[in-house]
């Protein structure tokens, strides 16, 4: 069987560092076990790239602040892609790194982001397919009545669209917005009756 992976599961896979973080470990093992049967869509790929881009800029903001205490984080032009909420996370990261010497900090960030980008390249090389499919706005809006997060609705819409021309695959995620009962509910939604649904797996709610 094939597996359609969403952004969260791939990011957790990339972020796994032999740590005790259960969900990352679960995603890492799952992707490694099914790698050659996994496919993603370009929307997911763009989301992951956006995640990496933002992460690098957040790290850069912390370095700027460490080098110049007068600097107000989030005011560099390149930081414009970060939203207000994310600036708070940058501040958290800065506090966490406050006592780490700037050179160590730079080294740590550099190593991490370079490997993350490399590993995403390796991931793309090893998976079955990268499908270019635009989401259907009407379908995504319909899904939004059940699933709160619009980005999730777009991804699920793409998965449903792809499913119509493919053998049944598993839509696999690690996203807290994709509740199994919400997915079940969608499969019974009369307005979606003509849709062939994929199987569903959310690693957040799975037990090993």
């Amino acid at each position, binding site marked *: 069987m094939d597996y359609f992976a969403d952004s969260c599961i791939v990011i957790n896979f990339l972020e796994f560092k032999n740590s005790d*973080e259960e969900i990352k470990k679960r995603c890492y093992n799952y992707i490694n076990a099914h790698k050659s049967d996994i496919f993603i869509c370009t929307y997911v790929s763009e989301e992951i790239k956006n995640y990496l881009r933002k992460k690098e800029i957040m790290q850069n903001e912390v370095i700027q602040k460490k080098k110049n205490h007068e600097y107000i984080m989030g005011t560099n032009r390149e930081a*414009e892609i970060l939203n207000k909420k994310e600036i708070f996370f940058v501040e958290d990261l800065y506090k966490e790194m406050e006592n780490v010497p700037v050179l160590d900090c730079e080294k740590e960030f550099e190593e991490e982001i370079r490997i993350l980008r490399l590993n995403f390249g390796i991931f793309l090389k090893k998976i079955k397919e990268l499908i270019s499919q635009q989401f259907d706005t009407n379908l995504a809006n319909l899904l939004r009545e059940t699933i709160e997060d619009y980005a999730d609705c777009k991804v699920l819409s793409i998965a449903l669209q792809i499913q119509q021309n493919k053998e049944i695959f598993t839509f696999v995620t690690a996203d807290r917005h994709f509740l199994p009962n919400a997915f079940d509910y969608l499969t019974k939604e009369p307005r979606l009756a003509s849709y062939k649904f994929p199987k569903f797996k959310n690693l957040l709610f799975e037990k090993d």
Partner: protein
Amino acid sequence: MTDIIERKTPEEIKKRIIESLNDKPLNAQEISKQIGSNWSTVREYVEQLVREAKVKEIIFGGSSIYQRITGDTYFNLPIKENERDTLKFIFSNAIKEYKELIGKPIRRTDLAKLTDYVNSELKLQLPIVWYIYGPMPLMIIDLQKDYSTNFVPKNAEEIKKNIKAWIRDKRKDKVREVIQECYNNSNEKLYKIKLSLFDKFEKNDYKGLYQTAKDFYLTYLASYNDDSKIVERIYEVVSGSDYLGILKEPKIKNKILLTLNDIWKYIASKALLKSLLVLGYEKESAELFMSPVIETKKYLSEESLKEIEEEYIERLPETSIQIKASETGKKVSEAMNKWLDSEAWRG
């Protein structure tokens, strides 16, 4: 309107059509409005001017617009007659003065940088734009051409003094040094970093390459945050190739250099557009002139990128690289996990 047409000779109409296109490209209806001739007359003479290679037809948004072919400016961008005359005055005096003082002909780069220097020192507000090698006059420098002119600008003596000063104090033996000094005296950070990035590749000096590539990427983001994907893709290839130690392969190094070169031309065309806006060109007409250029350069960059990415992907390892778990790394993860879980990054 008919009465007016009857009084004009074909040559007069053509002259007025060309004059109407001095500032920006127009469609036949707009030309007709400007010169007070009817649409069909304008169409007839515009078509003649196209055949005579004095006007160029561009299909824009499904309809035809007409652009004057200046023949002496980059991308046929319009410049004012007094600007053209002043540039000719500077060129002819600089060519003559350089030959007299140095004993050999001036180089194109020297003439471009000298003109920029005179322009900045005397605040002449000449049409000087940033392009591939930094500031340059919009009027194309062709050293085979005769720039002698009878035109004498009001600050002619000052201009001549500054030409001499540049030759005496700023001239360098190597073109690269002329360019470097010019970048260093400007606020154009991206140009300085680009020079250093190319330097590293040309000298096989990969120490600090990652940091330079990253500076280039972040500075680009800060300068042109509308479309960063092309620069991000080459940054990723440079960073990954450096990490994997594959830059020593001539094929990889040469393809990266070629791609960087194409991407730089794309960025430089955007820099040129930015300069035009600073010079006071109308946004709409500046975009009309520059958009096809930018699109072509972007397409060529993407083609080169595809080639190097193919080589790069082929060399990626089969399995992921393990990120070493460290105490600092743990702290980073703790802070960043909250961000990851919040899904704020999806916005």
